[in-house]
């Protein structure tokens, strides 16, 4: 049982992935863009942050840049996006992401195996 911040702008994916994570007793906080994500991290600490890259208002890379300094060592960030070229991947990893996962190769239950 972990506390997870799910930053994803698509409501359908937010619901589907949130549902699966909650079904195995994780606590999930939803944020729909990087800005909401940052605010959530000020309120509480998370074990995992699952982060989309292409989002309105504040994108995932910008979130990483701003969050990097405050990131507690116990928080694991997993980037979860369709926009993964070499630049995005290396920039995400350089700014504190632990792993980059291609969204199109995922289903909610396959995603669970990555968290473990």
């Amino acid at each position, binding site marked *: 049982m972990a506390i997870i911040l799910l930053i994803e702008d698509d409501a359908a*994916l937010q619901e*589907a992935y949130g549902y699966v994570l909650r079904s195995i007793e994780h606590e999930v906080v939803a944020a729909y863009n990087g800005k909401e994500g940052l605010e959530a991290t000020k309120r509480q600490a998370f074990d995992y942050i699952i982060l989309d890259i292409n989002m309105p208002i504040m994108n995932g890379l910008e979130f990483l840049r701003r969050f990097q300094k405050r990131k507690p060592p116990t928080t694991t960030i997993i980037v979860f996006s*369709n926009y993964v070229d*070499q630049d995005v991947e290396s920039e995400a990893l350089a700014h504190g992401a632990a792993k980059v996962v*291609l969204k199109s190769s995922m*289903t*909610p*239950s396959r995603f669970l195996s990555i968290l473990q």
Partner: protein
Amino acid sequence: MYKSVRWYVVVRLLFLLAIAVPSAAALFIFRGWNAEVQRNVLLAAITLVSNVLFYALARLQRQNIRYHTYLATIWIISDVLLVSALIFANGGIESRSPILYTIPILMAAAIFGRRAIYLTAAGCAAMYSSLIISDYLNIIRTVGAYNPELRSDLAYVINSAAFFSAILLVIGVAVDYITRLLIQKRQQASTSAIALARAQEIAKLGSWEWDIKKDAIHWSDELFRIFGVAERPANFDYATYLQLVHPDDSEIVQSTIKKATEQKNRYSLDYRLTMPDGSIKYIHSEGRPLLDAKDKLIKMTGTVQDVTEAHKLDAVKRDFVSLASHQLRTPASGVQAFLALLLDGYAGPLNEQQNRFVKRAYDSNTRQLEIIENLLNTAALESGKLFPKRQPVELKSLVKDCLPPHQLKATAQHQRLNMKTSKEKIYVVADPALLQMAIDNLISNAIKYTPDKGRITVSVRQAKSSAYVEVTDTGIGIAKQDRQALFKKFSRIANPESQQVSGTGLGLYLAYNVIKLQRGSITVKSVLGQGTAFRIRLPLASGRGRD
């Protein structure tokens, strides 16, 4: 312009030798070293020095047409002044004067055309008028006492003015007539050339010819416009041409032309140019060899077309495809997530019928996502945004990871999907994601075009300096005439069996180009009705066994 100026230098030298030097010599012989001779020698010396100076200036900037226009104008004016000074030095107007004035008139005509003749003639007329008026004023001033001698002086001035004006007019008209005749003749000869030039301008298409032995290139005017070259270079050779090509494309241009000349073949190539203002032009070039009777290559000839506009439209189209695909992907991913939730039992167990239906929906959705992925990759590939990583990849484990998703599909069609490989690890330098995409496309194709209960084998091996991935099936096969177009975009084979198979015609196109980007190649062998084998060849990573 440079040639006209050089022509004038020669005429001036002839003039100097033929008129100024003999006249000074004659004066010296008959009258001794007096002031008149000294003036003549001085003028000849000034002409000689200015000649050398102008010639040196003309050589300085061969390319700049405006520079030469200014130079020629200054030169003509200084010549008119010099000639006038010479006439004054020799005691006013006399029979030689019109001959001297012919020189600047001829030069102006040669350099600036007919309008210049009238300008020069007007300048000369003004000069004459001032001479005549000054003579006339001299007579008026001394007219105090009526003197029949002076009256005859007045008559002399008026007569000579009329005489020289008439001669100048004749020279002007004659030069004008000859110039017009020459222009007309040139126009007649070049009516078709003008029509051709206009056609080239409209089509933004230029033609060229390259004499290989002399290494001399001839371009049509339109080509200079396309390449943004203001004036024809004096010696236009292959090296000069290469400097105009975009630095990133220079290598492909050189290798293509080298291959075409060596094999005496036609070529067709798209490349870029950097304009003087820094903008980029896209051009399409076609070339073919010209051979002599002994089959020896003498020239290459061809066309170059400015396709920048078409390229921009293409970019707009690609951007649209890319944007539309991105937008389509998000909802399609949402559908997939929820179907997967149903299939994985998150909403409770499904009965057999429900499970079958949801499975169907899930498969269709997966295919939809695959198509979107292929469209996005095609758009990225064609706009040059697909930059493959270059890292060591262990080929056997990469291929092994490709298989599971296909295994489901193959099992559903009662096909056997196997992998065959040797024990040792095989390392290539490649982009794992792109390589996987290419192999996925080959396997998914093999499954599609192989009937139920067929067999698909994926083998990985290495030989010499290459690694090979071979996807062999026992499918419907590909006819010989269809193999040519196999790797082209949207190519779908027109036989009844393949019509039943869905596809975008992008899979093989992408696989082919993605492997090419990684310095490898794809070849195909097939027997109609028996099966097909696609083979990917990749260069081995040097220093095997690295991690």
